[in-house]
């Protein structure tokens, strides 16, 4: 069953080996379209604008003032509060998130590239089976695996360590899928065959020819896994107990939950909101600089132009 899933998922645009439209044609800009699109962009910006404005307010003003306008400006107090609360653990959280996501993304990209390239370009027994099982894996809900994985990791002494977060993030079935499709398209069989006839070894071929051709695809997988791990909440919530190891998502919800009454309760909305803003900034900046790779990696035809 999953075999046919894999077949159908190979995008036609990819399989057809298209030619890229290198230069965007000069067309007459449409005012109607421009207005329509830009008005609807307000929807995407609204929560972000709210976040930015609210992060400049004190706890009391969050409850007192209109959501989309400024009140007494206390962004710097909030920042100071956020970074000094609980002995400055927030900075540690940011650092953890960064390390987990970069480690996972690099590892996942390496494994996915190797596997995807092999599945696309080499014939060996079990090739189709492996690919189908990997695709089937996308369909199993993560919650099903949470406790079994926890119990296994616990037996191996891996819970409450960074490895508990990084290891599971190293396997990216979607990454393998993407790299298989990408390699099939971007790396020409004739080129490999010619290199072999010249006597180049398989790994030399991979290293000096294929890798360069695969680069945009690799970057895409890298970015997807980076975002996935950056945004990961469920896995670290289960695996980690020590706040010094938390990524920023788990840490912020911990602060948020302190407001819910009982002995020792604290209201930390301003820290949570300011912390949220700080935590999304690095990814937004990364997007600004790397966005063209997403597109070129996904629209696999791009390499050929």
């Amino acid at each position, binding site marked *: 069953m999953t075999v046919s899933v894999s077949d159908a998922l190979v995008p036609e645009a990819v399989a057809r080996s298209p030619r*890229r439209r290198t230069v965007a044609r000069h067309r007459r800009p449409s005012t109607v379209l*421009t207005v329509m699109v830009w008005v609807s962009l307000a929807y995407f910006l609204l929560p972000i604008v709210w976040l930015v404005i609210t992060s400049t307010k004190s706890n009391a003003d969050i409850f007192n003032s209109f959501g989309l306008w400024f009140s007494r400006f206390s962004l710097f107090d909030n920042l100071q509060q956020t970074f000094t609360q609980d002995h400055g653990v927030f900075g540690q959280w940011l650092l953890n998130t960064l390390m987990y996501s970069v480690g996972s993304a690099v590892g996942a990209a390496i494994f996915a590239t190797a596997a995807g390239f092999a599945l696309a370009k080499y014939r060996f027994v079990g090739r189709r089976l492996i690919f189908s099982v990997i695709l089937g894996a996308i369909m199993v809900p993560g919650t099903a695996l949470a406790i079994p*994985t926890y119990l296994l990791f616990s037996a191996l002494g891996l819970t409450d360590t960074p490895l508990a977060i990084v290891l599971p993030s190293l396997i990216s079935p979607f990454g393998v899928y993407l790299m298989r499709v990408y390699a099939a398209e971007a790396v020409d069989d004739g080129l490999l065959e010619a290199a072999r006839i010249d006597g180049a070894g398989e790994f030399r071929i991979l290293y000096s020819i294929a890798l360069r051709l695969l680069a945009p695809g690799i970057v895409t997988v890298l970015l997807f896994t980076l975002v996935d791990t950056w945004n990961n909440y469920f896995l670290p919530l289960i695996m980690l107990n020590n706040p010094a190891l938390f990524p920023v998502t788990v840490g912020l919800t911990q602060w948020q939950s302190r407001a819910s009454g009982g002995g020792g309760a604290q209201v930390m909305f301003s820290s949570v909101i300011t912390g949220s803003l700080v935590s999304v900034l690095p990814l937004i900046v990364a997007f600004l600089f790397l966005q063209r790779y997403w597109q070129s990696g996904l629209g696999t035809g791009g390499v050929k132009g």
Partner: protein
Amino acid sequence: MSLAARPVRRRASIHRAQARTGVLLVLPFVLLFAGLFIVPICYAAYLSTFIDRLVGGATFAGLANYTRVVTDPHFWAGFGRVALFLVVQVPIMLCVALFFALAIDSGRLRGGRVARLIVFLPYAIPGVVATLMWGYLYGPNYGLLSQITQALNLGSLNLLSSGNILGAIMNIVCWEFIGYNMIILYSALRAVPAELFDAAEMDGAGPIRVAVSIKIPAIRQAILLTVIFSIIGSFQLFSEPSILGVLAPNAIGNDFSPNLYAYNVAFVNQDLGYSAAIAFVLGLIIMVISYVVQTLTNRKAGGE
């Protein structure tokens, strides 16, 4: 003989070397995959054959947990909810994503690059943070959206009530994933060869006509990909209701989505076996539906 045999043998050895390289390349992933996916899943399957009780502990029960899932009204209530979610939210999200992708690809949009980035931006925001933000905005009395409707004399807006909560979650998921889907579709559009629609444009076909009759059919497989991912995502709905549940505890029950139910059965009720059975039944349903959607789409495409 020997002369003729040599190239054959040589080709055979090249093949063997290739197969070996292929296996070597795929092996690290497969080993990790086996350890981190196959083993836990087998363990979960094994656990699902036990009934876990506070008094008496775990006892072997064969397939009893599975028959319990099939007749569990909580499971089906959650299932019905995500099915409704799927039928309503996914088409809206994908149509909007497709609209943006086509608009930006058309080259008729001023500031297309900036627009593309803004639509994509929410994807960079962790689901946890996104849900927290929308939660603040939804507050029935003093949330931003209510503040706005009150200022317009429209009364307050309770988006967290039982009747509205599914729509409120749909909105959050749309906000998070329109950009993600748009990028996939836009990338596919960029790969559509220009000669496909140049001719049509020369014949005087308008941009809408070109989009509907040339571009959309050309990226059919990319659309199918986003549909399949959205089906999987909908059935696995978890973080949004689980975080929003703190703000709307009476509208979002333990069984709001099958995945949330499986989580609560495992972590609140401490019944690992039953939780695993729920997850397996859910996984099976997802596979069947994805398969049906694909065959239907492909058959339809084949018939054209």
